[in-house]
């Protein structure tokens, strides 16, 4: 199995350390930015399960992100904070159910057609929220009170509190990462890898490939739901734009930018994408031109994404001795 990906334990732990102490020293704004990056990292990793590990290039992953965010809105009472116990499972469940239903449709197609059909279905969900009064229509909808975690009368966590929220996001990021790592080593993970490598053979070996893909699709959708839940909580504001095809494109870009099928790459991609946006938009009015140029250049010149860059540099320094 392609378990040849060596996880640089040291780097991971160092990252975790920096992330866990950052709010103690960093300014509010950068803590929030980092929170956003971590949310996007969860989102990107969930997509990596499909794109990088199962070979399903979904161009509609934002649908599940968005559905979870809207679930938060619909479940939250108007004048009281909602309970985390209720909202998080509800949001994740909503995303998973949506992934199940959409999966039944889209997984019947393959390859390039799959890309298009996922795009079209996500767009359909976009219009459901955009054109129906369900979630405030095209103007979006606000959450007046963020969820909180209570046991009895004591409030343990308040997601409206930036510091609480930061650590909840960090915790969920780590949990998602660990969960995916475990999943990838499990029989299901191996089966998904087999499907990516040779779907036809999996079928003739007796794997009910459709069901496995559906399982992967639902899990990825549910994890995207975790990210969507967090995103709704961070800003307390949900609009149809969070499930537009641009969002699907952006998260796909994060996965590619970082290097797909590595999990770490997805997180790196999320970081790079958000930081690039920050830097470019501060540089010029026409910053999207720079963004577009970077995308084109990465695609043309860096097929393995940013995480392949380190290998390339290493190879260059070492002198081409090793063959990757």
């Amino acid at each position, binding site marked *: 199995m392609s378990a040849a990906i060596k996880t640089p334990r040291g780097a991971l732990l160092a990252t975790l350390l920096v992330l866990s102490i950052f709010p103690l020293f960093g300014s509010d704004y950068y803590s929030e930015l980092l929170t956003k990056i971590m949310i996007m990292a969860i989102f990107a990793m969930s997509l990596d399960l499909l794109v990088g590990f199962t070979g399903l290039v979904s161009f509609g992953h934002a649908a599940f992100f968005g559905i979870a965010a809207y679930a938060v809105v619909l479940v939250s009472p108007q004048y009281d904070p909602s309970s985390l116990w209720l909202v998080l499972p509800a949001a994740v469940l909503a995303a998973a159910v949506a992934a199940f239903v959409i999966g039944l449709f889209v997984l019947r197609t393959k390859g390039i057609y799959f890309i298009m059909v996922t795009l079209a279905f996500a767009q359909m969900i976009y*219009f459901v929220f955009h054109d129906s009064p369900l979630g405030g229509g095209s103007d979006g909808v606000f959450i007046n009170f963020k969820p909180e975690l209570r046991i009895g009368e004591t409030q343990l966590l308040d997601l409206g509190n930036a510091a609480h929220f930061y650590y909840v996001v960090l915790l969920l990021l780590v949990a998602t990462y660990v969960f995916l790592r475990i999943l990838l080593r499990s029989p299901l993970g191996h089966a998904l890898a087999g499907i990516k490598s040779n779907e036809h053979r999996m079928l003739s070996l007796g794997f009910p490939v459709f069901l496995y893909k559906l399982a992967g699709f639902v899990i990825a959708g549910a994890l995207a739901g975790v990210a969507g839940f967090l995103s709704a909580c961070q800003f307390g504001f949900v609009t149809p734009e969070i499930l537009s095809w641009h969002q699907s494109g952006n998260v796909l870009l994060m996965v*590619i930018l970082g290097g797909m099928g590595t999990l770490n790459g997805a997180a790196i991609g999320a970081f790079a994408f958000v930081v690039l946006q920050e830097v470019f938009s501060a540089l010029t009015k026409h910053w999207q031109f720079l963004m577009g140029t970077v995308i084109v250049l990465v695609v043309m010149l860096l097929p393995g994404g940013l995480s392949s860059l380190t290998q390339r540099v290493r190879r260059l320094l070492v002198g081409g001795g090793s063959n990757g």
Partner: protein
Amino acid sequence: MDLTTFLIQLLNALQYGLLLFLVASGLTLIFGIMGIINLAHGSFYMMGAYMAFALTSATGNLFVAILLGIVLSALIGFLLEWGLFSRLYKRDHLDQVLLTYGLILMFEEIRSMIVGDDVHGVRIPEMLSASIQLSETLSYPVYRLFMSGVCIVLAVLMYWLIRHTRLGMMIRAGSSNREMVQSLGINIDLIYRLVFALGVTLAAFAGMLAAPVSSVYPGMGNQVLIICFVVVVIGGVGSVWGAFVAALLIGLADTFGKVIIPDFAGLTVYLLMAAVLLWRPEGIFRRI
């Protein structure tokens, strides 16, 4: 709804559907033959519309502008294929999708840098500016009928090109097996370049043709892109005939959706899509 109104709505549906076909046909050609999902298709439509505006202002005549625009957009398509896409055929579909995603951002900003962000109109040529009285209150602009006529002519031309010409045969062969065609000594690279240029030109042409009616404004490409994708998804992979049927179906669904179930007008097209996919996961028609 009385009969006259119904017939006029039917005309509206057909007219919208035909224009949709024209925009989507280039997308489905490139998609079916080259296996590229061209997200920048909407940008080419936008580019065409802006060309119609700029060239009509410069030459004073929409038809001259369209002719120049066709040459320009074919050239752009040719260069893009040569410079970018031809280097990606060995790669995953994903890379091509992302490439076109990046191009959208670039084209939109290039447009902003060159022409600015204002809304512009394009004049309907004098000879087509009349209207035909349909009911006592409503008349129908001749230019819209002219657009529909052009769309029908192009549909027939494309059908003929693909069914009955050598190029069409090669195109059909190329769509099924790139290596095989190559081994027959046919220059597949050239065919791909031509097909891409044709696709770009079709999108730009649709933009130019529609410009006098739709006017030109920033972000107009994104609006047509998604609906074009729905056309292709419903019609089936790379099927020009499928795109034709799908575009007309969407025209009907959209027009009558707006009249009959106004509260869900934005959704009717997607409900149609879901229904079709439930019945046929790969669209109505699977091949050219």
